[in-house]
C-alpha cells in the first residue's frame, strides 16, 4: 500500500508538473483550473451515486476538456468568461452532490478522497493507469515535438500559419484531465490543481531556460511530494493537504533562497 502510494504520488506529481509547464506556457491555466473542478464534480457525483470516483472524474473532466478545446477555436476571446461560468457550475455540482450523499459519508475515506485526498484510495490498477497516462504523454511529446514547440514558441503565429492549435490544446487538456482525475484520489479535489501550477510557477519565477525548467519541475515535484507524504505519515495529516502545503512552502523557500543569492550576486557586481 505504501509503495503504491509513494510511486503514484511521485509519478502523478511529475506528470502534473510537466503538463503544468505546457498549460502555463500556452496560457491555459484557467482552462486547466476548470477541468480540475470538473473532475471534482465528477468525483462528488460518483460519491453520491456509489460509483467509481476516478472514472466518473475522468468522464466529467474529459468532456469538459474537449468542450473547451472546441470552444477555444470558436470563442478564443471569451474563454475566461466561459471558464468562470463552468468553474462556478462544477463547484455547485460538487457541493450539491456531497450534500446529497449520506451524511455519515462525510467522515469516511471515500469523501476524504474527494475533499482532501487519501493514500487508501491508491490501488495497483490505478497506479498502472497513471503509468499508462505518463507513457501516452511521453509518446505525444516525442511524436509532436516540432508542432508543440512551434505552438509553445508563439501560439498566435502558429495559428496564423495554419497549425491546428486547438487540437493540441485539446490533447494537452485531455491529458491534464486524466492526470488530475488520477491524482484527485490522492491529493483531493480542492488541492489537485496545486500539482499542476506550483512547480511550473516556481520554475518560471526562477527565470530558468526551458531545458532548466524541464529538469527543475519534476525534481521539485518529486521532492515536495515525498516531503508531503513524509509529513502526512509522521504527523497523521491528510495526505493531500500535506503535499499541497509542502509544495507551496518548498516553492516559497526555494524562491526566497534564489532571491537572496541573486541579490548578493548583484551586490558583488556593484
Amino acid at each position: 500500500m505504501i509503495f503504491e502510494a509513494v510511486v503514484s504520488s511521485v509519478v502523478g506529481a511529475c506528470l502534473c508538473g510537466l503538463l503544468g509547464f505546457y498549460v502555463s506556457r500556452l496560457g491555459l491555466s484557467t482552462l486547466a483550473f476548470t477541468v480540475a473542478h470538473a473532475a471534482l464534480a465528477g468525483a462528488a457525483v460518483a460519491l453520491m451515486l456509489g460509483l467509481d470516483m476516478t472514472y466518473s472524474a475522468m468522464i466529467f473532466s474529459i468532456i469538459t476538456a474537449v468542450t473547451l478545446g472546441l470552444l477555444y477555436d470558436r470563442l478564443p476571446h471569451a474563454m475566461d468568461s466561459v471558464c468562470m461560468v463552468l468553474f462556478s457550475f462544477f463547484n455547485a455540482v460538487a457541493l450539491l452532490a456531497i450534500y446529497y450523499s449520506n451524511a455519515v459519508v462525510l467522515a469516511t475515506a471515500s469523501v476524504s478522497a474527494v475533499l482532501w485526498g487519501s493514500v487508501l484510495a491508491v490501488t495497483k490498477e490505478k497506479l498502472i493507469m497513471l503509468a499508462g497516462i505518463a507513457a501516452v504523454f511521453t509518446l505525444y511529446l516525442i511524436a509532436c515535438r516540432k508542432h508543440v514547440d512551434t505552438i509553445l514558441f508563439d501560439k498566435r503565429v502558429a495559428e496564423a500559419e495554419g497549425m491546428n492549435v486547438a487540437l493540441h490544446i485539446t490533447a494537452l487538456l485531455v491529458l491534464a484531465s486524466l492526470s488530475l482525475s488520477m491524482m484527485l484520489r490522492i491529493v483531493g479535489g480542492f488541492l489537485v490543481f496545486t500539482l499542476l501550477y506550483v512547480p511550473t510557477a516556481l520554475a518560471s519565477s526562477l527565470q530558468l531556460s526551458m531545458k532548466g525548467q524541464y529538469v527543475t519541475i519534476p525534481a521539485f515535484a518529486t521532492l515536495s511530494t515525498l516531503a508531503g507524504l513524509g509529513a502526512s505519515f509522521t504527523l497523521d495529516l491528510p495526505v493531500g493537504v500535506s503535499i499541497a502545503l509542502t509544495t507551496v512552502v518548498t516553492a516559497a523557500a526555494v524562491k526566497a533562497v534564489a532571491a537572496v543569492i541573486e541579490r548578493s550576486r548583484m551586490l558583488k557586481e556593484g
Partner: protein
Amino acid sequence: MRGGNRAPGTIRGNSYAVKLTKVWVRYSGSGKPAIKDVTLTLPKRCVALVTGPNGAGKTTLVETCLGLLKPYRGMVELLGVNTRSKSIASVRKLCSYVPQDFMKPPHVTYSVKQVIAMGLTSAKAVFEPITESEEARIAEVAELLGVEDLLDKPIGKLSGGQQQRVFVARALVRNPQALFLDEPFSSVDADSRYRIAEVLREYVDKAGAFAMVVSHDTRPVEPISDVIVELDNGVVKGVREK
C-alpha cells in the same frame, strides 16, 4: 503614381489575395467596433502598405484578413476562401505572419535555426524531418536577412532588431503566397529597414505573392509598395494605387 487617388477599396486586378466586403470587427467585451464597414480588394503580386495613427485598426485588419479575428458583419476572403470556412486553416498554410509583439525573453532558448525551421512545421506530418532542400532554404533566407551568423544562437538572447529579422526569415522560409507583416521595422535600424523592404519586394515579384505591411514609418515601404491603404478610427480613409 499609376492610379492616383481612388474611391476606398477599389483596386485593379482580377486575381485577388484579400477581399473584404462591408466588414465590421469588434473585440469580445467591447461594444465599439475596431474596424467599421471596410470594403477592400487587394490583388496578388502586390505589396500593400497599411498605415494610420495608433488605434486606427491596422493590426485588427491584418488579423481579420488572416481569419484570426472573425467579422460580426460582412465577409472576408483570403486567397479566395471565406475566413469563416473550415478550410481557412489549409489556406493559412500558404500564408506567413510577422506579429507586432514578437520579442522573446532571454529564457526562450530555441536557436535561430529552430525558429526559422518552425515556419515549415505546419506543412509537416509527425516525425517528418526537414529535407536537404529545406535546410538550403533556411540558409538562404537567413543570409537574405543577415542572420546567417546567428543560426546557433538562442533567440531570447538576441536584440529586438535581430529577433525581428529572424521572424521575417521564418515568414519567407515558408514560400508563402501571402505575407502579413505587422510593424516589421519597429526594432531594426534604418539600413536594415530598407534591406528588408527590398527583400520583400524581390520575393513578391519572384513568387507572384502578396504582402500586406503595416507600418507607422512609411518611408522604407512606400517606395516598394503598389497600394497604400490609409486607416483612421477603424475606417478606410483612402486607397492609393501607385
